[in-house]
């Protein structure tokens, strides 16, 4: 079967007319169909070319070495099927990309390496030598290397290279939708996608109820969900529902839109358990007359329920989107190590070249700004407003970072996805332009979202056990952002998205001109695009298992969602609600200190009619309270170090914010992401997993054993799932020094997350950690058993003296 194709195709001219050169029109009737060469195709997917006896280079966590198998090029992806891969189950759900696959749309460059030369293969170039090696440089910074064997038919090596080169680039405007159709366009696929359920744990922030839920979760009071933008009439880039102060009526609210760029009024994002609120807004429209009524409303919208308000201007001290783009493109050149490039960075200049990209500078300034905001919020009597001219880039970034640092819920998997939904996707980050899938917005392109992921990674590295999500998850999200299939990333605002997606009901009558707002050449509903959070579409069960840490951080989803953490609601907050809208103090956070410049608020500074006098009168009072607020900002540095000096921070801070270390040596390159394809990378991490994951396993195993012991030896032969006790807390408590375990060698091993080499369950003390039976790919139910609300999940929460209660 494998040699059969050798003669049948002589494709002289490769044009993107796929029908001509389809190798095997996969049977169109069922999604269970398998290609005859061992590739499991999506319904309607066609194999254009294939090459046998190809070796794929492994790197990164898989260790070094080569993997033998067959390489395919379909009109949607480049797929690689290892020789000994188990045949897929026939009725399994379709997975868009296998572990070794790459979507055509995320390929950036195809390089063929011949005996004596290397050549970048483009759609128009012809290949004049037989490639020995094929290197695919991907937009997500992966580098895939395929080595053709001497036994690979030369025609195959030649033609698959050409086929990939001719089909990968979605350069033309229509190419994107072509790509989407290739992947998802079949009837079966559409049907399959329309039956997918939204993850109920993720807050999608699409309906009013979603926002209500968030208000309740954070314990915010004095706010309401306004549907004033229900039809995107007030602000096209804002979501339909926005949270505003309760006291502001919709009619009053409508008047405020004009005062902000693009109508992006101050909107509530998050409530700190101690009482402060985080808001975000665009810059003020300056050339507008402020009526007295307007001023009152504006003040109310701005201050929320508080007396003091700090504006954090993200236009200064922060990189612009253009800076980020420049830094990222430089970083890409440095890290990808292109073999077709003639000049490479000399070794001794690597550090200064890295510095020259300024990427780490940008990471650092974002983290620093977010940490400052976190410290401000801790005061409990402030409204902190993030302001950015457009409110669509760095506001998203800093606002999410602030929440990640201070809200444990945001560090869980559903919580993180909700956060991205809230602060990026529905808030109108221009994903489509910024990620520039269609190559039609080069000037707008800027990987702000990827910078955010890098910042999250830095936090995760410094506080691994405070996160439920893992580095693997961040990497998966990073890579998904380069696959133009997900509605989450394929629109610039919620309004555009609602046009493309069937998910939102179609009950909104179009207002004038909405059609022009649509991304070009995209028919609204065909094909329906999934959300990125549907990870099962992209990753196998095994890969997804590594997205979360198996033990729970002290604030797992099972626990009370962050909420108010039993923190006392400060009285001033209540007072603020009741108090009449007096003019509060406004400060500006700038270069690490607070000031109150007179022109901060346009209607106070002198533009307004009657307000000028007022502001004069207010001036002394604001400078009075200035030092008090300033103190907050400075509080954290000494306090932190004092803590570290005496008590380990975890003890004091297990609920405290994650304040990152930012000195030079503490900020590092995300090697697992950017240096995956480095030219020389072989074996960077033979570690089977992150130490934290290993720790988690250890704890879990201990828990299992304890559970088993306490259930008594009579039950020892039961499976571990029944074996996991009903009352784990009590069992855990018995993990005191005096406990003895009763092993029963025949008992089933505890559930495992990672397929590890099968080994006898207990051979020695040393191998105890690593000895686990291959139970990894259990049925779909297993993951629930492990990660849902498993008994061990409550394990760490219960640390401390209250254990037995």
């Amino acid at each position, binding site marked *: 079967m494998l040699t059969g194709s050798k003669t049948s195709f002589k494709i002289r001219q490769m044009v993107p007319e796929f029908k001509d050169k389809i190798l095997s029109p996969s049977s169109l009737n069922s999604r269970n169909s398998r290609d005859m060469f061992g590739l499991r195709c999506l319904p309607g997917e066609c194999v254009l070319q294939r090459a046998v006896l190809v070796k794929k280079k492994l790197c990164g966590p898989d260790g070094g070495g080569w993997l033998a198998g067959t390489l395919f090029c379909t009109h949607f992806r480049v797929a690689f099927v290892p020789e000994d891969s188990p045949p897929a189950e026939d009725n399994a759900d379709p997975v868009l990309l296998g572990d070794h696959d790459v979507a055509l749309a995320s390929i950036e460059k195809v390089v063929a390496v011949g005996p004596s030369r290397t050549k970048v293969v483009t759609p128009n170039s012809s290949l004049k030598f037989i490639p020995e090696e094929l290197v695919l440089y991907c937009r997500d910074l992966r580098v895939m290397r395929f080595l053709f064997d001497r036994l690979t038919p030369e025609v195959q090596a030649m033609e698959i290279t050409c086929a990939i080169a001719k089909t990968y680039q979605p350069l033309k405007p229509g190419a994107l939708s072509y790509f989407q159709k290739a992947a998802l366009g079949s009837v079966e696929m559409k049907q399959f996608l329309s039956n997918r359920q939204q993850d109920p744990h993720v807050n999608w922030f699409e309906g009013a109820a979603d926002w209500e839920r968030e208000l309740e979760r954070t314990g915010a009071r004095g706010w309401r969900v306004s549907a004033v933008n229900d039809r995107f009439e007030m602000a096209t880039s804002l979501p339909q529902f926005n949270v505003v102060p309760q006291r502001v009526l919709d009619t009053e609210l409508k008047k405020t839109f004009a005062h902000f760029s693009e109508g992006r009024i101050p909107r509530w994002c998050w409530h700190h358990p101690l009482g402060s609120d985080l808001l975000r807004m665009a810059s003020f429209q300056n050339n507008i007359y402020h009526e007295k009524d307007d001023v009152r409303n504006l003040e109310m919208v701005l201050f929320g329920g508080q007396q003091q308000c700090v504006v954090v201007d993200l236009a200064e001290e922060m990189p612009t989107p253009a800076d980020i783009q420049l830094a990222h493109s430089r970083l890409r050149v440095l890290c990808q190590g292109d073999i077709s490039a003639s000049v490479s960075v000399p070794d001794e200049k690597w550090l200064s070249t890295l510095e020259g990209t300024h990427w780490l500078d940008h990471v650092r300034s974002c983290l620093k700004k977010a940490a400052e905001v976190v410290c401000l919020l801790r005061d409990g009597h402030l409204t902190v407003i993030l302001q950015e001219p457009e409110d669509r880039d760095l506001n998203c970034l800093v606002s999410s970072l602030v929440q990640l640092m201070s809200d444990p819920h945001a560090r869980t998997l559903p919580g993180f996805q909700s956060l991205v939904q809230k602060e990026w996707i529905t808030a109108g980050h221009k994903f489509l332009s910024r990620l520039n899938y269609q190559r039609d917005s080069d000037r707008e392109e800027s990987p702000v979202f990827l910078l955010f992921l890098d910042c999250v990674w830095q936090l995760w590295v410094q506080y691994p056990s405070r996160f439920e999500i893992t580095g693997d998850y961040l990497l998966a999200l990073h890579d998904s952002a380069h696959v133009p299939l997900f509605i989450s990333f394929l629109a610039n605002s919620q309004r555009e998205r609602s046009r493309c997606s069937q998910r939102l009901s179609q009950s909104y009558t179009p207002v004038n001109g909405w059609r022009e707002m649509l991304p070009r050449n995209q028919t609204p509903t065909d094909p329906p695009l999934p959300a990125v959070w549907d990870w099962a579409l992209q990753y196998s069960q095994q890969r997804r298992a590594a997205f979360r840490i198996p033990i729970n951080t002290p604030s797992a989803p099972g626990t009370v969602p962050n909420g108010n953490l039993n923190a006392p609601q400060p009285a001033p907050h209540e007072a603020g609600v009741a108090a009449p809208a007096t003019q509060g103090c406004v400060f500006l956070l700038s270069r690490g200190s607070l000031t109150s410049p007179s022109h901060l608020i346009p209607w106070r500074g002198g533009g307004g009619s009657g307000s000028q006098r007022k502001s004069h009168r207010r001036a002394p009072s604001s400078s009075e309270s200035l030092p008090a607020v300033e103190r907050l900002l400075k509080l954290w540095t*000494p306090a932190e*170090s004092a803590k570290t000096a005496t008590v380990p921070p975890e003890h004091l801070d297990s609920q405290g914010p994650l304040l990152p270390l930012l000195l030079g040596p503490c900020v590092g390159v995300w090697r697992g992401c950017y240096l995956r394809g480095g030219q*020389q990378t072989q074996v960077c991490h033979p*570690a089977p997993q992150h130490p934290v994951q290993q720790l988690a396993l*250890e704890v879990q195993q201990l*828990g299992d054993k304890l559970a088993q*012991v306490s259930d008594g030896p*009579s039950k020892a032969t039961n499976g571990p799932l029944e074996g996991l006790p009903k009352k784990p807390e009590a069992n855990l408590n018995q993990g005191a020094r005096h406990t003895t375990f009763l092993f029963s060698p025949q008992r089933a091993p505890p559930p495992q997350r990672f397929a590890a080499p099968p080994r006898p369950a207990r051979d020695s003390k040393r191998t105890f950690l690593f000895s686990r039976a291959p139970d990894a790919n259990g049925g779909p139910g297993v993951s629930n058993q492990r990660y849902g609300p498993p008994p061990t999940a409550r394990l760490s929460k*219960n*640390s401390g003296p209250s254990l037995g209660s």
Partner: protein
Amino acid sequence: MEHIRTPKVENVRLIDRVSTRKAAVGTLYLTATHTIFVENVSDTRKESWILHSQVCGVEKQSTTATGCPLVIRCKNFQVIQFILPQERDCHDVYISLMRLSRPEKYEELYCFSFNPKVDKEEREQAWNFLDLKAEYSRMGVPNYLWQVTNVNRDYGVCDTYPSELYVPKSATPPIIVGSSKFRSRGRFPTLSYYCQDNNASICRSSQPLSGFSARCLEDEQMLQAIMKANPGSEFMYVVDTRPKLNAMANRAAGKGYENEDNYSNIKFQFIGIENIHVMRNSLQKMLEVCELKSPSMGDFLWGLENSGWLKHIKAVLEAGIFIAKAVSEEAASVLVHCSDGWDRTAQACSVASLLLDPYYRTLKGFMVLIERDWISFGHKFSHRYNHLDGDPKEVSPVIDQFIECVWQLMEQFPCAFEYNERFLIHIHNHIYSCQYGNFMCNSQKERRDVRIRERTHSLWTHLWRNRADFMNPLYRADHSQTQGVLRPVTAPYCFKFWRGMYNRFEKGMHPRQSAVDFLMAVKEETQQLEEELATHEEKIAKLEKQQVKNNKVMLQPADKGKHLCVSPSDTSVANTPQDYTGNAVTRSPEWPT
């Protein structure tokens, strides 16, 4: 004692450099071996001990309104700043410390007064903990190709070499003596590592006194003998770890390197590790970067690159890789030398051994490696690490670089090493501390003359006793990549700044959470529990036997279960990471100073 001008100064303030925390006020005490700062806070009375042998620089800064600042720099990269209220006190402390930190005789060193409560017999045993003879026989020598030579029994041929040396069978004493006369300081080629699998060996020597044209028949015979001792190979490598330019310059002084024409079947190779002076300056530059108050990303990265430190580390590692490759892949013997064969040669040989042989990646193996390649072969510890007041030009971080190479390898191969970073830091600390006798003096002969073994204690047993602290929880002896030869990557991004070493006293820069620490604690706990389990199982077995004997009713399984369960009230320890924090952290960064 006579050097202490003032034993006690009150109202001294200790400045914390990284954090802006308020300075701690306390009392400064000077003792013969330590400077001790005791904080005034009554309930804690936190003490900071500074060992005088760790002090490498004392700086008295100009008096300000707040007092007279005194900066003490330590060899373990700690920088301490005191502010003394009186100029006169400050001067006294300064003068005392200057003298105390620069002992003139070996007898003044801390190891001669350090007296842990260990009886004489135990101490003598401790010195026999490592046995180099056993190490050589582990490698498989002596055998039909290699033999022990007694030619240097009384250090007559070479006073910086150990008394027992391994040479090829065919190298007769006249050849050895002749060869040693042709080598700088008499350091003739001798065996460092022997690869049993393919008979390839790593030998070491100093540079030949070849000048521009000199030859020595015995030396040529010596190299021939080494090559012949590897029957499978047609040639051998001679690796000069110096840059070519340096080696050529040495020719003018009548030294230099082997001429390929004079020696049959040798392949000559320069590696290009810079000399001790370049390394000293490089470290100095890097430490300046470390001391920056709040460096920007640019300051840090530029400073790190300009110091060239990581470049030098890379050079050392590459030397090791070259040798390891020659031995493992080409099965060729290698002769390594630099100028005198005690700095760069020691680095290159030990890195190569570490890459080649998994044994050296175990706790005991690493001690053996240092004992063999550094201590026995006469690395000049006293000069390089400034144990005695001497020529500052002789000081250089040679073994520091080797230790850092090991750390860089640990970063690349986290499962390959049985020991952890803490172990390396601990060894590094004691190389400078002069607390144990192992690293005293400059050669075996000197150590014998000073009677180190009779008068001081050995570090190795101390480390071995505390080995639980130094185990790498990720170590997997059976992992495919930890077996056999390590093949590290030397791309520039693989060399990282070693925060744990150079910033180890700056609490503000330590990682907030160390997963490895947690893991270690949990593993330790598991082990304890398993041991306990074993003893309990034994007990049960015994009990059951007794019961059978007494012909009583068998213990019911249910009873057994009850018996094994611990009462729920026993909640003193729980198995969550948080519970271990206390242990892990208190154990981690506090090093004896």
